């Protein structure tokens, strides 16, 4: 009876989780959604504490307290620009938890089996032994969990720069990885067949393979591709959770896992589609270098002439413009320039200029990256327009300010069939009367390709850190010189 009530509570929790994600379909309902999610989690945890298997609480309480402390600390102190890192890190925690749960369960079951063999306990006490389903899903869970753990740590490292963002590759790398993967599968199958008769080292070897594969698989992927990797790991984590659900016969784990998994999968598909790259290309293409500028583009050679402009030039152009579109990119995140952008926009609007923001689906390094940053600088989201909504307006616009964007404003993506980003939809900024580009140098962006835009006659390059430049521009526009 108690068991059934607990799983009814889990059902309620699962429904609340679904409502939580439904809430995210609009900013208005978002917070209510999150509240429902929290409620669901509370219900699930409380219900679990009633389980008969739970005898002692000290470890639980300790863990909950410690976890909540760390969680709160992180979430309070992390700047919005660090979101990708934070998400990578929490995937690592998730993977770790899943994999440890699996190991603990395996340890328990094997122990019981052993005691049973030595007649230390009776079959009655032992309860049902391990079924093939359990063994299979345990293996899956631990393998995927470990892989997610190390993989996400690697991603975190590459984003933070502890680990070189450049793809680390060597001959036969993919072959080796696939070999390791195959090996793990073989071990799992053997254990599923022979259950308790299979030696324990097999389980732990499999688990170890997971850990190392996480590292090996991410090494050859460029730092800037980490967002795709992170979303992909997200869906692995989801699958691992489902496996846990199968192993522990817990529907709520299966449901949440499925929700998690589909979200990860959809987002990574979205990203690779928007960058028009295939999954295979992202995972095995050793593409993208993370630190923009690392790659010197082919066409670079001797420095080409470009229109190197001063703050004053730019301010003059802006002063003369009725309509301005701001195109933020990864650079805005790097220089944390979102507030400076907001101030400049406000100043322009005070002068009667109409200001809009053009947000590219893959601007920045994470889906919705720019939206969050601008929201933080409390730019109203109805001033943000995506590709198809605004792309025709550039031709009718007096001035475009490109704040640390590069690939998403690269006309080559439309014209140059040999360009690696050919076919990726980009903004038609070059059609505007004049384009002001804020970046630190003439270096390339994520994709490492030269950007013809920077050399067009109607483009003014204002080099320097975006934030600094914007602040001076703000001063110049306000007219108080700075």
């Amino acid at each position: 009876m108690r068991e059934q009530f607990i799983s009814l509570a889990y059902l309620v929790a699962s429904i609340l989780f679904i409502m939580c994600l439904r809430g995210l379909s609009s900013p208005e309902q978002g917070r209510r959604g999150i509240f429902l999610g929290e409620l669901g989690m509370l219900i699930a945890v409380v219900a679990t504490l009633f389980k008969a298997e739970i005898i002692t609480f000290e470890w639980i309480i300790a863990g909950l307290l410690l976890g909540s402390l760390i969680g709160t600390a992180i979430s309070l102190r992390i700047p919005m620009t660090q979101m990708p890192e934070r998400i990578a890190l929490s995937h690592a925690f998730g993977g770790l938890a899943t994999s440890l749960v699996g190991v603990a369960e395996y340890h328990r079951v094997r122990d019981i089996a052993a005691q049973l063999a030595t007649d230390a306990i009776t079959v009655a006490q032992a309860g049902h032994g391990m079924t093939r389903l359990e063994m299979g899903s345990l293996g899956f869970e631990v393998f995927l969990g470990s892989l997610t753990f190390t993989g996400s740590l690697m991603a975190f490292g590459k984003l933070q720069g502890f680990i070189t963002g450049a793809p680390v590759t060597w001959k036969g790398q993919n072959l080796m990885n696939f070999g390791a993967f195959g090996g793990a599968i073989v071990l799992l199958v053997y254990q599923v067949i022979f259950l308790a008769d299979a030696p324990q080292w097999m389980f732990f070897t499999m688990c170890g393979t997971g850990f190392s594969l996480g590292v090996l698989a991410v090494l050859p992927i460029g730092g800037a591709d980490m967002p795709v990797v992170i979303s992909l790991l997200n869906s692995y984590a989801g699958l691992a959770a489902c496996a846990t659900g199968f192993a522990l016969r817990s529907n709520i784990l299966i449901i949440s896992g499925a929700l998690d998994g589909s979200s990860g999968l959809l987002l990574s598909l979205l990203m690779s589609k928007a960058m028009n790259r295939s999954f295979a290309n992202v995972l095995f293409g050793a593409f993208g270098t993370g630190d923009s500028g690392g790659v010197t583009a082919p066409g670079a050679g001797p420095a080409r002439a470009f229109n190197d402009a001063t703050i004053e030039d730019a301010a003059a152009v802006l002063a003369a413009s009725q309509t301005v579109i701001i195109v933020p990119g990864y650079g805005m995140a790097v220089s944390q320039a979102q507030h400076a952008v907001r101030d400049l926009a406000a100043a322009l609007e005070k002068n009667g200029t109409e200001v809009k923001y053009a947000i590219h689906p893959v601007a920045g390094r994470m889906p919705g990256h720019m939206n969050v940053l601008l929201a933080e600088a409390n730019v109203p989201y109805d001033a943000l327009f995506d590709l198809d909504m605004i792309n025709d307006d550039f031709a009718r616009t007096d001035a475009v300010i490109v704040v640390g964007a590069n690939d998403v404003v690269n006309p080559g993506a439309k014209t140059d069939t040999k360009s690696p980003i050919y076919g990726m939809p980009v903004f038609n900024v070059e059609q505007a009367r004049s384009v002001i580009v804020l970046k630190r140098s003439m270096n390339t962006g994520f994709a490492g390709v030269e950007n013809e835009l920077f050399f067009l006659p109607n483009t003014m390059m204002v080099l320097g850190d975006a934030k600094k430049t914007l602040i001076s521009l703000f001063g110049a526009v306000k007219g108080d010189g700075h």
Partner: protein
Amino acid sequence: MSDDLVFGLYIFALATFVGYQVISRVPPLLHTPLMSGTNAISGISLVGSLVAAGGKHDLTSSILGFVAVTAASINVVGGFMITDRMLRMFNKKKSPALPPAAAAGAKRPVKTA
């Protein structure tokens, strides 16, 4: 092939449909909150960890469980807090910094030549 497996597959299939449909309704505007939100929900592995930590099987299990509980609850607490913090930032009406006129102008792409 056990009943449990079949049952699980039913739940899995249906939940995947639900997930797919719910997620595909989330606008790009909220993709980052979505990422951290699902992150918090994935902290549900807490359920499994609690059993391991409270099972009193032996010290190994308890410690493994303890670490798992910690890791999972970091995700739950952190995930929900950050997502909420983000969503609080999204607001429709103009910030005081900007004149209402501009707000009206920005409501939709104004087709002025």
